[in-house]
């Protein structure tokens, strides 16, 4: 009687374990939280981008001289390219997009988009020269506002590797320059360090 009871328990647990193992064999797709910490690989990832953007936006918006300027008006800024000095392919425009979007949404700065200059020119020429647009409603050429500040920076990395350990250090530097005077008004850095260790049975 007792023996039978144990056999059924063993049978049940073996079945449960088998089910768990088989679950691991099926392929499934699931939506994940985009803000979750991501550690799929040691390469530059979404968590690194989000951490950099967050630190830079918080820093620039609370830096006393910048606070003083933005208290009275919303200066116009343009974003230059971020130089990627790492050995990885990293879309640095995506980092500056996130940073400029957050700064814009804070209501403290306005931006001019230098990537759209030719499209804007084409549209203004169409409005003013094609004869198809009512002159009273056409946007005038030569009325755009010039940027007062420029945002630029670079991303560098140091990678060290042994047979079992890979260590990656990223340093993101961002600066804001007053265009007329050439003075760098603000600068900050964000450092990120990640390490991957080979597990006992890992590759």
């Amino acid at each position, binding site marked *: 009687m007792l023996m039978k009871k*144990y056999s059924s*328990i063993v049978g049940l647990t073996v079945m449960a374990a088998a089910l*768990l193992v088989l679950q691991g064999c099926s392929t499934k797709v699931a939506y994940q939280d985009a803000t*979750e910490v991501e550690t799929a690989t040691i390469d530059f990832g979404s968590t690194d981008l989000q951490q950099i953007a967050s630190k830079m936006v918080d820093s620039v918006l609370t830096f006393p001289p910048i606070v003083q300027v933005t208290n009275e008006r919303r200066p116009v800024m343009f974003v230059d390219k971020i130089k990627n000095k790492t050995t990885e392919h990293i879309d640095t425009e995506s980092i500056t997009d996130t940073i400029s979007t957050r700064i814009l949404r804070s209501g403290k700065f306005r931006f001019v988009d230098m990537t759209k200059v030719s499209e804007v020119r084409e549209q203004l020429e169409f409005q003013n020269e094609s004869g198809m647009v009512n002159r009273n409603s056409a946007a005038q050429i030569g009325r755009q506002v010039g940027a007062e500040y420029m945002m630029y920076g670079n991303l560098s990395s140091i990678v060290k590797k042994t047979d079992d350990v890979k260590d990656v250090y990223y340093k993101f530097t961002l600066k804001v320059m007053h265009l007329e005077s050439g003075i760098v008004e603000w600068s900050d850095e964000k450092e990120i360090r990640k390490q991957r260790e080979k597990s006992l049975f890992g590759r």
Partner: protein
Amino acid sequence: MKNHHYFAKLFASILLVTLLNGCSTSGIEAIGKPDDADVKKHLLIHNDALAKNITISDMRSREVGGLLEVNLKLTNLTSSDKAVAYRFSWFDGDEFEVEIGTDAWTPVSLHGAQSMSVHGVAPNGSVKSYRLNVKGQ
């Protein structure tokens, strides 16, 4: 007979651990309302096990250029290293969450008994209160 008993226990333990893993949820929330005179600051604990390891204290806030700036202290109450993640949520005067999904989970590693400052700046001037979530990684 004894062997059967042993394996049954082993499989049951594995099963239990696997199931419990799937149940782990966000841990501690710190809520700060700088303008509220009555209920200024308090902690909400959703995970007792994490709350025994990590605590949030020294909640401070101020206004910088019209933006709410907050500073809190995370402390590892144990003697071993702990990996946690935190995220801010921001609310306007009507308790509506603003800029939902902008703040991402930030991973931090706390050494045994280490304290660390956590800093956040509201995304815009409409923010009047905040919530800090801390969870295990």
